Structures are given as structure tokens and as C-alpha cells.
């Protein structure tokens, strides 16, 4: 809906960011400009410390914008109040390096949390939605397992299910496979991308895995807080 009224899902303009105070202050983003089109799968690469996570957390409403502008699904994030940030966060799926599942909730309940945040309408038939989502990610047999009884790959798949279950128009993923071994990591990412692309979701993902690059529409490389290159491989 938002993607319709505003063709650009995400528009970043002149974004700067600093960490620290006074003497220790250090600029980690320098004048970033970036636009994501609906349905694109964009991969963000760059050396460690180049500012990828910082950019993602700013665009994902997880950090306050200090300087510059971020328009996310039609809303300006710079100077936005808490209520706007909360609303915007609900329209994204964010997948972290660590799974960050709640240890006291089963796989099914963790996924339920992705629906509950949207209130009553989203909760109708929640159990079937959550089961179907976990089923698609190959966890149909693990619905009532607590995270402590799941493998690393399974946990990350639950986290992906939680991010996808409410069908967000935009997904940010920050090295979702960093905590997994290479092969199971690849399998998880492939599942995630298949599922997300089948619904036309826009994706911005940080990864170091070259094997995934073939799937991307666009590859952006960062260096020392600046965009170094932006290559479109094939139109979305």
C-alpha cells in the first residue's frame, strides 16, 4: 500500500552519523545517498567497520537519525517522535545476526509475537499463519520446541519466520547467517530469499557470502562510511 503511493520504499539523503562524544567523537557515515525500489533484493557489502550495521539500524528505526534524511515507506525518520518510530518499526522485518529469540517462548509463540504487535486483526487465525510460516521454513515438526532445544540454523529460521509472518513490505537483514556454519547458512538464506521474493518484498541484506551474490538485483559496497559502488545486475 505504501509502496504504491510512494514508489520508493526507502530514500536516504545526505545521511551522516557519529558515535561518541567530544574528543572521542568519530564519524562513521558520510553523506550516504541511497534509494530502494519496490521488490528489489539489494546486497550491502564492505569491510568490517565500514558502517553497514549503522546504516541498517538507522534505516530500520533502531537508532535516531542525527543528520540527513531517511524516508521510509513515506515517513520521514529524522526528528520523528517515538510514536512514528514505533509505527514504522511494525512495517519492517528486521533479521539480526543473532536470532534473539525469546528463551521462554516456543518456536510457534516466538512467531506469534510477529503478529501480536499488529493488534487484533492480525491475530485472527494466528496459529495457522504461524504454523504455515514455520512449515515453509522447514520447521513444521518443531513448532512447540523452546529455542534451547533447536539448533543454530533452526533458531535463525524461527527468527526469519517471525520477521516474515506479517508480510512486511521491506526487510532488513544484517548478516543473518553470521552465527551459522557456511553450508547451513547458505541454505537458510536461500529459503529466506525464496520466500520473501515470492511475495514481492523489498530486501536490503548485509552479507559476506559471495555465493549469494548471484541472487541479488543490486550490490552496494561501502568503505569507511561512504558508498563506494552501486551496481545494478538486473532490473527488479
Amino acid at each position, binding site marked *: 500500500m505504501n509502496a504504491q503511493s510512494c514508489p520508493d520504499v526507502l530514500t536516504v539523503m545526505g545521511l551522516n552519523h557519529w558515535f561518541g562524544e567530544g574528543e572521542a567523537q568519530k564519524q562513521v557515515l558520510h553523506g550516504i545517498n541511497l534509494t530502494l525500489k519496490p521488490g528489489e533484493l539489494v546486497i550491502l557489502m564492505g569491510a568490517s567497520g565500514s558502517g553497514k550495521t549503522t546504516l541498517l539500524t538507522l534505516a530500520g528505526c533502531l537508532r535516531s537519525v542525527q543528520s540527513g534524511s531517511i524516508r521510509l515507506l513515506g515517513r520521514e525518520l529524522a526528528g520523528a517522535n517515538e510514536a512514528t518510530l514505533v509505527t514504522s518499526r511494525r512495517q519492517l522485518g528486521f533479521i539480526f545476526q543473532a536470532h534473539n529469540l525469546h528463551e521462554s517462548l516456543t518456536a510457534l*509463540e516466538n512467531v506469534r509475537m510477529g503478529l501480536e504487535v499488529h493488534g487484533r486483526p492480525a491475530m485472527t487465525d494466528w496459529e495457522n499463519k504461524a504454523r504455515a510460516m514455520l512449515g515453509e521454513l522447514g520447521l513444521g515438526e518443531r513448532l512447540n520446541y523452546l529455542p534451547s532445544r533447536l539448533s543454530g540454523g533452526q533458531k535463525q529460521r524461527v527468527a526469519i519466520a517471525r520477521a516474515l509472518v506479517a508480510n512486511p513490505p521491506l526487510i532488513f537483514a544484517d548478516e543473518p547467517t553470521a552465527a551459522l556454519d557456511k553450508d547451513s547458512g547458505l541454505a537458510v538464506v536461500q529459503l529466506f530469499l525464496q520466500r520473501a521474493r515470492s511475495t514481492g518484498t523489498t530486501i536490503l541484506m548485509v552479507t559476506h557470502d559471495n555465493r549469494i551474490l548471484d541472487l541479488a538485483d543490486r550490490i552496494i559496497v561501502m568503505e569507511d562510511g561512504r558508498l563506494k559502488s552501486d551496481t545494478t545486475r538486473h532490473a527488479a
Partner: protein
Amino acid sequence: MTASRKPVTARVLTLLLGRLPIGWLQLTHNRTRLIAAVGGVAFANILVFMQLGFFGALLETIRMPYRLLDADIFLTAADANTLTDGSYLPRQRLYEALARPDIEGGHAWYVGKLDWDLAPGQSISLQVFGFDPATRPFRSQELNDQLTALSVPDTALLDMATRTLDKSRFANASLKAPVSLELAGRQLDLIGGFRIGGGFEADGYLIVSDQTFMRLFPARSPGAPNHILLRKAGGTQADQVATDLREVLPAEDTRVETLASAIAKDQSYQTTKRPVGVVFGFGVIIGMLVGIIIVYQVLSTDVADHLKEYATFKAMGYPRRFFLGIVFEEAVLLALLGFVPGLLIATGFYAVVSKATGLPLEMNMMRAGAVLIGTIAACALSGALATRRLNAADPADLF
């Protein structure tokens, strides 16, 4: 395995809250910590209950002697705060009051304290009340009749609830079969009993005639009683009679109270100006502080332990009140889980202390309800404090 295999509590809470009972699930996830937390709340509850129990017993023991009396107006020395302190009153005030049409009757009340040597090295203290045996000062007609019998000199009535008293020796004392006891070097004949029970001032009570009182306390004189009790005439209001009496009796030596206000002032004096009362009041506050600190510790550790999960929820778009809701849920559950064993154990302790000291420690609904509400409030306050850190931070800074 399906979702419906959840334990009943979690299912009920899910329905009640309209969301997953994350607080409950978190609390029960770590059993050891849950037990420690519930133990802590119960401990704080017991502490508060015990202090309130002693405080209540203090109030009750202050009130008990007054409760025996059939009087509307209470005259006492201007500098007296309790039944036992202050100067004496001129008995003249009694006659001045009796001359008024709004006073129907009255009598003097003599109060003194004696040590009673039960056995060598075992002595208890008795509060001794002296009344004119020709009057009927008590609400109990049986006690009034017994007082009449005290017109025989050197006879007495003993409080059968007196602390450490071997009741079997005195329980059957009567006019026909008096039991003798030695008090202040005098031989007294015990001819009956009544029940008040010891308080914080004395271990028990003894009632004698005014004449016998003067023999026990040779320094005292009938013209100077401790208090004067008055009965108002029919059709008058005690408050009004007291106000009118205040106009005519000299304020420099006489304080005029209704019996009810005399009790209230005595209680308020002893609970706020006397060490015992202040100590118990202070104990209640300490108990509450201990409770708040324990619960705060538990809840803030719990928030710290789940900061990553909470940050994730915050990143997903859950609002502030959601986290406050989780912590309040935990706070209320801890309050309830700690309250039940706290109440049961405290009730048991009341019985033990009551048996050992004779003090009237009793659990009542009012007190239990007040402690429950206080516990929930303290837990909620701790919970609100514990989430401050979470509210202030950007989700990205919490991972």
C-alpha cells in the same frame, strides 16, 4: 505436540491479558530464581505482618482496660497522656461534674503499679485499679457484682489472663473460697477474676476497692484519683457534654475527653511518642523497604537478563507500555505468589507469639488486604523503576 498442550495457568493468563503471558513464562522459566524471588517477597510480607501484628497488639492492649468501663466522659490530669502517667486529679472535679444536670453519675478511678513476687526470683508487674465498691463502673454486670463484694477490706479480683500466671491456683477463687496472695507486703484475699491480659506496660491487672488501694499504696490519697469517669444524662450527646464540661472545669489541671477520644488519644500518644510504638511503626517501614528492594532486585535482574529479547521486541514495534505490561505482570504475580505463603506463615507466627507472650496478635481481613495491596503497589513501583533503562535506550544500543 500442539499449542493447546500449554499448562493451564499460561492459557488462563493468555486469555486474561489478551497476549502471551511473557512475564509468567519468564518467571517460571527459571525455577530457582522464581523460588528465591517468591521467598523474598514472602519474607518481606512476614516482616511487615509481624510488625503490624505487634503494632495492632499495642493498640489493642491500650484499649482493653477502657473497654471494661461503662462511662461516656473521661476526666484526667492535664499532663496525663495514658492511664498510668501524669499527675493526679482533685476529686473535687467529680463533685463539680456531678452537680450538673447533664451528668447522671460518676466515680473516681485510682491506678497504680505493683510487682508481685510469684516465687523467689520470679516477679511480674500488675496494674492495680481501685474503684469505690458502691459504684458500678463496669459494662459487665458480673464484674460490677464482684466489685460490690470487694467492700470487704483486703480483697481483690485478679486478671486471669495475666502473663505467666499459673491459673490453676487462682481460677476457682470466690468469696466463699478465697485464695490468699501476698502483695506489697500485705495479705490479700482473691475472691474472683476477670480477663484483660498483659500488654507492653504490665503483665496483668488487679482490681481492688479504693480503700484497699490506699492500703497497697500508702502514699496515695483518696482525694487525688488518677482519672474520673462520668456517665452522661439521658438525651445528651457525649461530645456536647464534654465541650460544656471543658467550659467549667479548670483546664490547667483537668482534661475532658469522651471515652472514645480518650482511647484514641492514648493510642496515638503511645504509638507516636513512646519508643515501642515508634519501633513497630519503623519496623513496618523497614519491612516494606526490604520488600521493595528485593522485588526491585529481582525485576531489574530479570529485565537485564532479557534486554536482548526486549530490544528485539522494541525493534519489532512493540510500544513502551508493552514492556511495562510484562514487568507489571511479573510484579503482580510475584506479589501474589509471595503473599500466600507470607500470610500463612505470619498467621502461624502470630499464634506462636500470642501463646508465648499473651499479646493479642490476630490476623484480620483488613490487615491482610492492606498488606496485599501494599505488596502489589510496591512490586509495581519496583517494576516501573526496573524498566527505565529499557525505555530510554534506542533498540540498537541494547543488543
